[in-house]
């Protein structure tokens, strides 16, 4: 070798990566713009995102969109089907189903998002701790997780509803306290893997504190599965809320919870199917939308996982 072509080492990549992947002179390509580019290509995920976005707008502007209030009764119409006055018909006592479904989005989104946030915080903390510290404290956390896994959330929900009464907040507490198990396991597994990464060892070797290593160096690296799981978890929480409401352990009438509306209408399925159809559809579409967004995020965040 008489003339080493790339003395500086900039052009030589020991991994054999193509130079095109190493933009030296151009502006660095942000991770998130890259993710967005891949997410955009997934039509179903975009549809889900649009639906979620619309739902949030509906929840914010429910006052403007709903023609009636949630308790207002039309004494001339009970259980009547869809009409120009009442787009989704009226319920057993003459309340406008459309308005109640619109207001119901607030209940579902609030419960779904707040309970998922609680679950995420608990799960991330415990999982990070278990994965980072390992050994017996880690094992202890995982045994606690196992105990929680063996208690059906519905039983816990009934217990909490009995103690604190039936309300939106008790549903949030129930779902928050039972929803962290999955995140905890994901974060633990991810942290155990990251413990062996050289940059984590390097952080120890350069004198960083444990807490700083956990939250500044390791957590951002396990954020991708957390985001994906969290998005899908919002959908699951909304579904769980509907189930609890249906079982009459969720919020009480006149709260326009979709599950409760389905439950109240189920007796008249033959005569007034709209009582079940519209809130039921709202539940299904919302859950589907969150799951689609979650799936889309998974593919966009980690293109290697894509199996299609």
């Amino acid at each position, binding site marked *: 070798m008489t003339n080493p072509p790339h003395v500086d*080492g900039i*052009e030589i*990549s*020991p991994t054999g990566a193509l130079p095109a992947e190493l933009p*030296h002179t151009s502006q*660095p390509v942000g991770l998130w713009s890259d993710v967005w580019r891949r997410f955009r290509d997934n039509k179903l995920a975009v549809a889900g995102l649009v639906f979620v976005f619309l739902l949030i707008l509906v929840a914010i502007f429910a006052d403007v969109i709903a023609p009636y209030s949630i308790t207002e009764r039309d004494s001339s119409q009970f259980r009547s089907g869809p009409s120009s006055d009442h787009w989704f018909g009226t319920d057993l006592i003459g309340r406008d189903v459309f308005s109640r479904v619109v207001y119901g989005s607030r209940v579902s989104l609030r419960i779904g998002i707040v309970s998922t946030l609680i679950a995420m915080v608990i799960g991330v903390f415990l999982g990070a701790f278990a994965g980072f510290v390992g050994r017996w404290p880690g094992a202890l956390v995982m045994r606690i997780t196992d105990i929680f896994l063996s208690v059906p959330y519905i039983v816990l929900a009934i217990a909490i509803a009995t103690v604190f009464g039936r309300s939106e907040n008790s549903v949030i507490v129930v779902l928050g306290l039972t929803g962290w198990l999955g995140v905890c396991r994901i974060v633990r597994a991810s942290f155990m893997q990251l413990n062996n990464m050289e940059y984590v060892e390097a952080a120890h070797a*350069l004198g960083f504190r444990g807490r700083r290593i956990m939250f500044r160096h390791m957590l*951002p690296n396990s954020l991708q599965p957390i985001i994906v799981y969290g998005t899908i978890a919002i959908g699951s929480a909304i579904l769980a809320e509907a189930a609890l409401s249906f079982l009459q352990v969720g919020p009480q009438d006149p709260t326009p919870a979709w599950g409760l509306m389905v439950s109240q209408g189920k007796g008249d399925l033959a005569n007034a199917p709209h009582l079940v159809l519209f809130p039921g559809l709202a539940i299904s579409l919302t859950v589907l939308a969150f799951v689609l967004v979650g799936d889309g995020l998974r593919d966009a965040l980690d293109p290697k996982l894509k199996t299609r």
Partner: protein
Amino acid sequence: MSPRAGSEVLLSVKNLVAGFDTGEGRVRAVDNVSFDIRRGEVFSIVGESGSGKSVTAMTILGLLPTVKVDNGEILWRGRDLLKVSDAEMRQIRGAEIAMIFQDPLTALNPVHTVGRQVAEMARIHQNMSKKHAMTRAIDMLDLVGIPEARKRASMYPHEFSGGMRQRAMIAMAITCDPDLLIADEPTTALDVTVQAQVLEVLLDIKDNIDSAIMLITHDLGVVAGLSDNVMVMYAGRQAELGTVDEVFYETSHPYTLGLLRSIPDLEGPFGQPLVPIEGSPPSLIDRPSGCPFHPRCSMARNPGPCTTDIPELVQIGTTAHVSACHFASEVSVAL
């Protein structure tokens, strides 16, 4: 390059014995190792994989929670590192003793910009403000020879090549002006042309911040070119310790001799086969009796002391050159 006998002893390891517990018993990864590192010198540790090089280094920094130290002292400027608190140890790590890792591809966190990672050192050890720390980081990146340091500081590790990343690692390690840099095979993952540059950067930096370097490597070429003193390790024990000239030209341990003979000679006749050391390193759980090297040693005498007695370090000549061989004085004759 001469050993600076007169300068301050920074690190003094005395009779260090350390190991891990495994299912099959205790592994003595480091067995009765002693050495001094002085300010300004490059101290190399060479040996095969599993000879205890990295464990020795990691034990100094207290980075291996599973390693138990059974005996010995690690004196860092007079303080025994085996006795300081976790908080004190954290202050020493990075600020006084900094480590440069083997694989620059994985030793930088992929989610933070390079500048931020270098700046973080200044922030946690020197309590600098974000802005000052970033200025410091850019200066450091500049010092290790990263062109357009200001622009590159805002890039992520995946936008750097291997050599650039290793430079960034070095920048991180030197941000707090440490007195000792431990470099664990710093060039193994790099391309040969880049290796030389990175080593050059390392040497320049050493003189620049007046520190010492502990270089862990199995590349004897690197050792010959850079080091002042060399320690050869075999199966967790010291085989030979001395200045580069002593170890390379007055070799007094058959293992060192074997290592030197196994290097391809570019000036020798073409087609000459390499001379390997026969056999493989011993299991650290089930050690051979006597000298750990005797099963592979061409000079071993059986029956003789080689199979029955563990050789102690004996002084060769009048300097600090020592060798753990029963027949140390006969080795250099065979050279």
